[in-house]
């Protein structure tokens, strides 16, 4: 492998200075380095062997997962923690198909990924060749963009374009399908690098100044404003700009699940999370506000409840980089298209301080009336208690990953997030099994940080095959399984809406501690409440991957809850007679 330079080439007829001939596989490795890739994830296979051979001599750190889905979630979390593009390399057919869940997860949450999939040789495409799948066809609706490289001369440009598309604008996953013969052919490569050629791709970063001023004026005129901040604030690295705006204009802030950490939840202006399992005070504030300022959020159905009755008294300002997000679900009065960081830093100049005494008094009242709470006086371990205890012992500064379900919602409610890029969770797609591989990716991105995966027994069971990946790489990932022996959220819905008919929602689990030990990790089990603080201490001190199986209260529910079709103010799980306020 390697390059053939001008002088070494016997036939340099077509070559001029500044050009060299390179193998496709080598071009691949070089482009990755030019793009600043330090770590990538993946799994080898037949048609990507030339690329893996080239990687053998590359300084890029390659993390071998045990399943391609795991590799994709690892790269996803790596991207969420660092803000860089996550990179995955897998083989054709089954390898590519196994990335589908990871791609859809990243696509829903706007996470920058470049996934390179091997493909059978170009003459075999369409022949139902061994390990052939129509990867671009399969991944088209779940990626920001994808393409197949059929000519090695287009390889470098296509890869650079993939990185450019993945990281700019509203970020997202990009797939590049790489046939075997492309990685084994030679191309003339210009040393200056290829030009990106994307006439149909233009990103608008700066917001329109008139719209920014209109938005600021709306805030200034508002008696009862609320800022609703989403994952876009984190993607745009705009937390500081948001904080400045909030401090100057004096506006309460609620965040989405993916927005957790973009505004300090310990700040008195924080209402924490809104939506289906949001806090009562966030939901009431949204329903009562006269101005809703959405920043990098997309009015998902888990946020709005019954969309017709969402924020009924509010004018809506929507700041988003994706024009298609504006007025998609909720009609927007003042749209501002562009990058949240640039827009917020401009907007802060035009907002004026206002006291809003009555509004904050009302918010304080709802905070006092309906705090997030649970009954911790039983003998059993409450899942919320485990989360609160981990939060206390990590001072709220750990990088926290989750699977999907009840444990995810409790984590969102009871771990107090104060830093962006510290809550890593599958929001849009709701991918069970995301948490553990995500924790691996996060720990690789931040070897110094404490990385905790709050997981469900069912979620963890989906991807616990990545335990050897954590062990092999010496990653001190902490897994807290909130084990209730159910698919907890499914069970909660069956309890509430299906007459407690727990159809297929319980499972016979293994002894997770022994499973962890078998893989070479540390396994611990807690069955009594009094063991919890000690065992968490032990877990956090552990230098190896550590799995703690907390046997928690089996039928605990997540409250409050806005059932499907209900207005955001119609929350179940509040003290009786208090949910008819708007």
């Amino acid at each position: 492998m390697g390059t053939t330079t001008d002088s070494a080439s016997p036939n340099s007829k077509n070559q001029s200075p500044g050009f060299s001939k390179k193998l496709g596989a080598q071009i691949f490795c070089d482009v990755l380095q030019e793009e600043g890739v330090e770590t990538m994830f993946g799994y080898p296979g037949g048609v990507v062997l030339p690329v893996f051979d080239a990687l053998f001599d590359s300084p890029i750190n390659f993390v071998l997962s045990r399943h391609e889905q795991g590799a994709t979630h690892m790269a996803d979390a790596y991207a969420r923690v660092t803000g860089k593009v996550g990179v995955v390399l897998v083989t054709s057919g089954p390898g590519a198909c196994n990335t589908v869940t990871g791609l859809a997860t990243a696509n829903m949450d706007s996470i920058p990924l470049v996934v390179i999939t091997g493909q059978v040789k170009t003459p075999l495409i369409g022949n139902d060749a061994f390990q052939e799948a129509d990867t671009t066809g399969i991944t088209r609706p779940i990626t920001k963009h994808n393409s197949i490289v059929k000519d090695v001369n287009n390889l470098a440009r296509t890869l650079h374009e993939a990185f450019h598309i993945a990281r700019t604008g509203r970020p997202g996953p990009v797939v590049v399908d790489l046939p075997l013969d492309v990685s084994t052919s030679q191309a003339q490569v210009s040393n200056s690098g290829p030009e990106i050629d994307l006439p149909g791709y233009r990103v608008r970063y700066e917001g329109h100044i008139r719209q920014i001023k209109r938005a600021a004026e709306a805030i200034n005129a508002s008696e009862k404003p609320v800022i609703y901040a989403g994952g876009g604030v984190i993607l745009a690295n705009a937390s500081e700009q948001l904080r400045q705006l909030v401090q100057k204009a004096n506006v309460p802030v609620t965040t989405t699940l993916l927005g957790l950490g973009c505004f300090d939840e310990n700040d008195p202006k924080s209402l924490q999370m809104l939506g289906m399992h949001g806090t009562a005070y966030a939901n009431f504030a949204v329903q009562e506000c006269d101005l809703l300022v959405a920043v990098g959020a997309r009015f998902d159905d888990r946020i709005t409840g019954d969309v017709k009755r969402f924020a009924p008294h509010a004018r809506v300002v929507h700041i988003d980089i994706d024009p298609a997000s504006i007025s998609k679900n909720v009609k927007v009065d003042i749209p501002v298209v562009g990058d949240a960081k640039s827009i917020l830093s401009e907007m802060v100049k035009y907002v004026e301080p206002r006291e809003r005494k009555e509004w904050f008094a009302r918010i304080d009242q709802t905070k006092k009336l309906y705090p997030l709470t649970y009954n911790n006086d039983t003998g059993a371990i409450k899942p919320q208690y485990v989360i609160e205890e981990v939060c206390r012992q990590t001072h709220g500064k750990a990088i926290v990953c989750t699977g999907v379900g009840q444990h995810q919602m409790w984590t969102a409610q009871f771990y107090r997030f104060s830093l962006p890029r510290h809550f890593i969770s599958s929001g849009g797609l709701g991918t069970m099994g995301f948490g553990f591989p995500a924790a691996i990716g996060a720990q690789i991105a931040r070897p110094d940080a404490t990385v905790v995966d709050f997981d469900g027994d069912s979620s963890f069971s989906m991807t616990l095959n990545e335990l050897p990946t954590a062990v092999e790489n010496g990653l001190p990932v902490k897994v807290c399984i909130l084990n209730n022996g159910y698919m907890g959220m499914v069970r909660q819905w069956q309890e509430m809406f299906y007459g407690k008919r727990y159809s297929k929602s319980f499972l016979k689990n293994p002894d997770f501690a022994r499973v962890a030990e078998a893989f070479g990790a540390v396994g611990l089990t807690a069955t009594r409440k009094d063991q919890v603080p000690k065992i968490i201490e032990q877990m956090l001190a552990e230098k190896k991957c550590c799995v703690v199986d907390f046997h928690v209260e089996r039928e605990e529910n997540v409250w409050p809850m806005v059932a499907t079709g209900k207005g955001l103010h119609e929350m179940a799980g509040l003290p009786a007679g208090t949910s008819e306020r708007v």
Partner: protein
Amino acid sequence: MKRTISALVQNQPGVLARVAGMFAARNFNIDSLAVGRTENPNLSRITMVVIGDDATLEQVRKQLGKIIPIVKVYDFTGEDLVQRDLMLIKIAVASEKRPEIQAIIDMFRAKVVDIGPKFVMVEVTGPEQKIEAFIDLCRPYGVKDMVRTGMIAMPRHSKARPDKGLEPERQGPEPDRE
């Protein structure tokens, strides 16, 4: 409501699949779709007739704009358009009825392109209403087969618009004036 949207796209494999897939995935209704080359060899034009209200159309336009090989999206809603559909239609007609059919054909400025003992094949172009009217008039004779291209459209007041004198359709009353 039917609306016309036109998109300039890069000539790349899979562009049409992207557009068609997006329509299906986002639950938009497409009435017709026509694709063809443009004066620029690197670009093609997709003309779509979409069914939906203002909000749906806005989403269609924006979602099309997100497809990376789509260079430009034009919403022709409310514009003064020249719209054309091309149809080939095979009408069952016995020889004694031919003069009747010929009269209809002449009235629509259509053209007989093939003829057999029991049928004529006719080429018709025009806006949708004209094509539909022609089909309705042929039905009593028996429509054996028909094929349509889907609508293409161009706004009259685009920069590429020819002088008035060069635009024959603007002179005199015509059945295909919209």
